């Protein structure tokens, strides 16, 4: 899974702490997701998608083989 978190944060001028506050998670969780060390739960993914106003699948991108 790839994420566009870093790119979207840069677009919206948010640092990890600010995104963490908006998505009601810890900064550590944002950092883990960006480093692909943790796959977020559905609720966290939805909250992050809401912050960026983007569909979930445009933020968390799975390779075809991961989905089949």
């Amino acid at each position, binding site marked *: 899974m790839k994420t566009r978190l870093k790119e979207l944060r840069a677009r919206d001028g948010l640092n*990890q*702490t600010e995104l*963490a506050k908006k998505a*009601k*998670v*810890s*900064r*550590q969780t944002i950092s883990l997701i960006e480093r692909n060390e943790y796959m977020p739960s559905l609720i*966290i993914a939805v909250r992050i998608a809401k912050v960026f106003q983007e569909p979930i699948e445009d933020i968390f991108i799975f390779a075809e083989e991961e989905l089949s």
Partner: protein
Amino acid sequence: MKLFVFYTGILIYGLYGLKASFNDRVMDENLLIAVNLSVILCLMLARLNINKAVRGSKIEVEIEKEDEHLAEMERKAYSAAIYIQVAFSLATIATLVGFILLRESQPKIVLVSFLLMAVSFFSLFPNENIIKITNPTFKMPHPKSKNYQQQYFDQFDDGEKYVMLKGLYKIYSLITWGLIILAFILMYYSVFSGNSQIMSIIGIGLLFMLVQVSFTQSLKPHKAD
């Protein structure tokens, strides 16, 4: 900062005392004083990291360096927690060993170990200012809350719980093997030294059983209501 200066003063005074009367004391006493001084050093380093983390979290840095800066502050906050944990462990061991060996000849040294154990125990409780560095949305439960532990745990989000789980699983394996190895070492020690460690082996055995059973019990599916 005041606390750091206070610890530094005690450390210097303790080192001077250790050096001045080193030859007048037996090895056990000198060793216990050295351990007490190590505890103070750990508490000093913890305080230093806490001060740096709190001060650093108030500094404004450039946007490009912000994430790395925050991660650095978080590392300092965790380093402080590690130093406090080391201090508490050392002080606890020093108190127990000191009580066995020196309670009659040098009760003052044992009392200092006990006081250091109490200080490091209370330092273990996380300060809200420090937690805010690692988790800005964290809300400390009320200290008098009946479900304090559960409420405290629930404050961590899924990502943090995932990191905790990975760490705890490693510790579970380490403790399991550590207890087995320790029990065997004590068995050989008992046989070859004639100094029976049966009580310790029984204690380790009970702890081993408790760790294994509780872990497996937590994996067992619950009965449907």
